């Protein structure tokens, strides 16, 4: 599409300036577009005078808008309960607060059996990977709840999740603890238990805006990061197989469950 073609599209429905008229005469693409646009005008004889405008009298509007009373009553009830609009970031602050609290609760409960930090990797590596998990936790929550970005790229979310998963598996200490199956089941169960509350709050907040699968995935990854972080700090088992099947796969599975549950839950608001 040339710049002239783009200008022609901007001017569809209006009188074209001479230079664009000349362009249309010589451009097959523009002839097709203007032809398609004009054809759509054929079936209706409505004109500007028949389209509703803000100048229509309120009396007329009241008669022709059957849903007005319901919507108005709902607006008044909502305003009576909460006169001032609550900014979207209140939800974000609540979610991050819940995530942080659950990290604290999870580590405190697990520390009763063998201290806070069980990861035998070098401290710098433990902290570094922990910071990356925390970054995903915050970024995922932001992406899920922020109204600023309408379209969340699948590729970006999947790439970040994949990179973090690989990082967690490859930076393990290599230290073997329990047998593989027992260790995997233990950590997967812990991951599920620690994620229940963050996931529930996440789903409740997600239902306050329109359903977007990529957003739901980002939110699920963020909620699952709570338990991923707890296990990363506490779990002494550092073999790649244990980290893959006991930490990363359950984390990804929980994110998938978040998408599924959000798609099934009713939507309270369709705002972007």
């Amino acid at each position, binding site marked *: 599409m040339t710049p002239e073609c783009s200008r022609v599209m901007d001017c569809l*429905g209006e009188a074209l300036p001479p230079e664009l008229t000349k362009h249309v005469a010589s451009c097959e693409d523009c002839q097709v577009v203007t032809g398609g646009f004009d054809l*759509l005008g054929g079936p209706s004889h409505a*004109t500007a005078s028949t389209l509703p405008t*803000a*100048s229509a009298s309120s009396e007329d509007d009241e008669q022709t808008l059957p849903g007005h009373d319901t919507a108005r009553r709902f607006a008044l009830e909502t305003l009576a309960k909460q*006169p001032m609009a*609550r900014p979207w970031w209140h939800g974000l602050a609540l979610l991050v607060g819940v995530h942080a609290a659950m990290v604290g609760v999870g580590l405190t409960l697990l520390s009763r059996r063998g201290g806070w930090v069980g990861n035998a990797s070098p401290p710098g590596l433990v902290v570094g990977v922990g910071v990356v998990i925390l970054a995903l936790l915050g970024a995922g929550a932001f992406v899920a709840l922020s109204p600023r970005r309408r379209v969340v790229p699948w590729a970006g979310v999947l790439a970040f999740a994949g990179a973090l998963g690989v990082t967690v598996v490859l930076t393990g200490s290599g230290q073997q603890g329990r047998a593989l199956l027992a260790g995997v089941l233990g950590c997967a169960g812990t991951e599920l238990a620690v994620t229940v509350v963050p996931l529930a709050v996440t789903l409740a907040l997600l239902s306050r805006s329109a359903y977007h699968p990529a957003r739901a995935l980002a939110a699920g990854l963020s909620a699952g990061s709570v338990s991923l972080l707890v296990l990363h700090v506490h779990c002494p088992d550092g073999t790649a197989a244990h980290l893959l099947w006991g930490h990363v796969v359950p984390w990804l599975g929980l994110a998938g469950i978040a998408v599924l549950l959000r798609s099934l839950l009713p939507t309270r608001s369709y*705002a*972007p």
Partner: protein
Amino acid sequence: MKPASAPVRTGDDSVRTSVAPESDEVLMARFCEGQAPAFDALFQRHSRQVRGYLTRLTGSASTAEDLVQLTFMSLVRSRGRFQVGSRFKPWLYAIATNAARDSQRRGRRTEELTAEGELPTGIADESPAPRDVGLERAVRQALDMLPEGQRIPILLHRFEGMGFAEIADTLGLTESAVKVRAHRGYERLRELLATLRTETLE
């Protein structure tokens, strides 16, 4: 989602804005501060256009009626998500589009077009007679055959009089992406209409 009978893009919002004492954005700001009359003004200013858009998008007048209510209830519930400095109309149409998509996703369709592609009897037709019913049906069928990614930009552009920047805002796409989709859609429509009209004449 299927299209229904359509009014026409006028490309003239100046009538509305010159008469309206306050912009949509000012009214929305007032509503966010708790003023109910601002909501009334927004509802009366936009509800009929939104209903028309949803009727064309879903192909069902009664579904559109329900979705208009859901759209404005969403507006009330999520007024805190409206970004100061952004435009109101694209935001409202984004809500309406999301509501229609969700309705389609959940299979909540109470009324369908007839096999001939017309609205069922008993639904008020707002466009004045006389009409070229055959051509109207062909246009509906042609629009129905477009993929959603092309149909929504065309409905918003041709019938709601929105510019490509506003449509981009509504759909969360770039302006050039919307133009490409509309371009392909108009191109495809012309082909489809030519075929459908030929079939009708035969």
